[in-house]
C-alpha cells in the first residue's frame, strides 16, 4: 500500500501548530487525575480465582484438614512442598480422625503458584490464597512450616463437616 504524504503547508512547517498542540495535550494531562497507586498504603483488589501463596486451612472445628496423603508433594512441579507424615503411630488422641502431617513445609522461593496442590488435594486442605508479596530477610525464613501455613490459611468455611460425628 502506498501512503500519500500530504505536503505540509508553510504554517505547519514552522513547527508552531505542532508545538501549540503539544502544549495543549501536556497541560491537559498535567491537571488530569493521576493513575498512580500509592502501593504500600493503597492496594489493588485481588480478583476472584487469583493464585497467590498456598496455605493450609483448618476445618470449622479447628482441625488440620490435611491428612498427609502427600499428593501435593508429588504433584508439585518445582518440588516446593515437603511433607513428613506422622508415621504408623499417628495421633492417639485423634480418635477416628485421619492422620495429620507431622511437618509440612512449603518453600515459597521454589513455589511457582501454579495451583496444582490445590487441585490435587482430596481433602480441600490447601488453597492458593490472595497473598502476593511474600518477604523475608533470608532463605530459611521463606520456608513456611506447618504452624505458619495454618495460621496464615485460617479456617475454611466447609459445606460438609467430614469429621463431625466420627
Amino acid at each position: 500500500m502506498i501512503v500519500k504524504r500530504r505536503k505540509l503547508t508553510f504554517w505547519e512547517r514552522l513547527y508552531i501548530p505542532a508545538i501549540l498542540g503539544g502544549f495543549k495535550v501536556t497541560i491537559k494531562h498535567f491537571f488530569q487525575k493521576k493513575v498512580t497507586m500509592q502501593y504500600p498504603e493503597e492496594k489493588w483488589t485481588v480478583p476472584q480465582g487469583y493464585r497467590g501463596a498456598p496455605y493450609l486451612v483448618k476445618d470449622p472445628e479447628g482441625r488440620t484438614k490435611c491428612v498427609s496423603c502427600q499428593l501435593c508433594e508429588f504433584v508439585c512441579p518445582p518440588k516446593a512442598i515437603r511433607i513428613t507424615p506422622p508415621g504408623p503411630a499417628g495421633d492417639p488422641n485423634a480418635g477416628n480422625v485421619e492422620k495429620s502431617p507431622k511437618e509440612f513445609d512449603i518453600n515459597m522461593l521454589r513455589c511457582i503458584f501454579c495451583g496444582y496442590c490445590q487441585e490435587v488435594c482430596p481433602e480441600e486442605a490447601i488453597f492458593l490464597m490472595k497473598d502476593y508479596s511474600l518477604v523475608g530477610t533470608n532463605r530459611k525464613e521463606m520456608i513456611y512450616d506447618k504452624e505458619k501455613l495454618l495460621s496464615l490459611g485460617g479456617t475454611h468455611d466447609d459445606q460438609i463437616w467430614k469429621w463431625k460425628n466420627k
Partner: protein
Amino acid sequence: MFDWAFINSLGPHQQFLFFSTLKVVGVIAMVMPMIAYSVVAERRISAWIQNRVGPNRVGPLGLLQPLADGLKFILKEDFTPAYVRKVYFWVAPAITMIPAFLAFAVIPFGSNLGNQRMVIADLNVGILYSFGIVSLGVYGIVLAGYASRSKYPFLGGIRSSAQMISYEIAMGMSVIPLFLIVGDLNLSKVIEYQANNAWLVFYAPLSFAIFLVSAFAETNRLPFDMPESETELVAGYHTEYSSMKFALFFLGEYANMIAASAMMVTLFFGGWTLPFFGLDKPATTIPMGLLHIVIFITKMLGFMVLFIWVRWMLPRFRYDQLMDLGWRRFVPIALLNILITAFGLYFKS
C-alpha cells in the same frame, strides 16, 4: 557575632575581593539547591504530564529527594572502565560543569544590596564573555565521548560538536539586534535600557524565538538532545560514566539550563526589573534589593519550567533535520533579523 565594622578598615581592593568572594559563594549557594530542585521539578512535572505522581516519598511531598539522590551518587561505585583514556575521562566532567557556573559571573541577578551591585563581574563585554564561556561546555561532552573509547559515547560527542557549532552561530547572531538597539554589550546596561523602555522581547521577538530554540540545543535538552539520546545511543556521551562523575554531567546540564534561563531573562525579559510599582529602579533599601533578586529568580524559574515542560512534550529531532534547522533556517533568519533591525534603527534616527 561577626563584626562588620572591619570592612571599613579594608582598602578598596581588599573590599572588592571580600565582596566578590561573598557574591561568588552566595551565587553558588543559590545555584546548587536550584539545580537539585530542578531535578525534582523535572521528575515531578514529567510525572504529572504522564498522569503519574512522581517521587513523593522522601520527606514531605518528596522535597528531600535531592538529598537521597546525592547520597546515592556519592555511595555508588565509581567505575572507570579499563579501556578509557584516563586523563580525559577524568577531566571531561569537570570541563562540562565549570563553564556552566562561570556563565553566572556576568549575569546581574539583582540591583543592589546596600551599595554593592548584585553582579559578580560587571564586564563591558558581558555577552561576549558568556557566549565564549558557554560554548566551552561542548568540550566536556566531546572529550567525554572521545575519552570513553566506545562507539555510543563517541557518536554522542560527534553529534554534540556538530550541533553546538550550528546553533552557536545562530544564537550569537540572534542577539546582535539587541545590541544594535541597546548600543552596549554590558548586561547591566541592557537591563537599564529595558527598564527605561520596554522588555526587549517586544522589540526583537524573532531574536527571542531563535535564542530560545538555540538555548534548547545549547543545553542538550529535548527536542535537541542528540548527544545523549537515550533511545539511540544508550546514554550518549556519558554512557561509560558512573557515580559522581556522571553526577557532574548531570549537574552541568542543569546548571547550563539555569544559566541559559538567566541569560534569557536578562536579555529579553528585563532581568530583575518589573515595569510597575517602581520596581524598575535600582533598589535603595535592602528589602527592595532582596525583592529584585526574588523577581529575577522567579522569572528564571519560569524558563526552567518551560525547559522541563518542553522535554516531555516534543519528540527528538532527527539529526539531519536538526542541522537543517540550524544552518538553513536559523542562520539566514538571524542575518535577516540583523538587517531589518539595522534598517529600522537607521530610518528611525
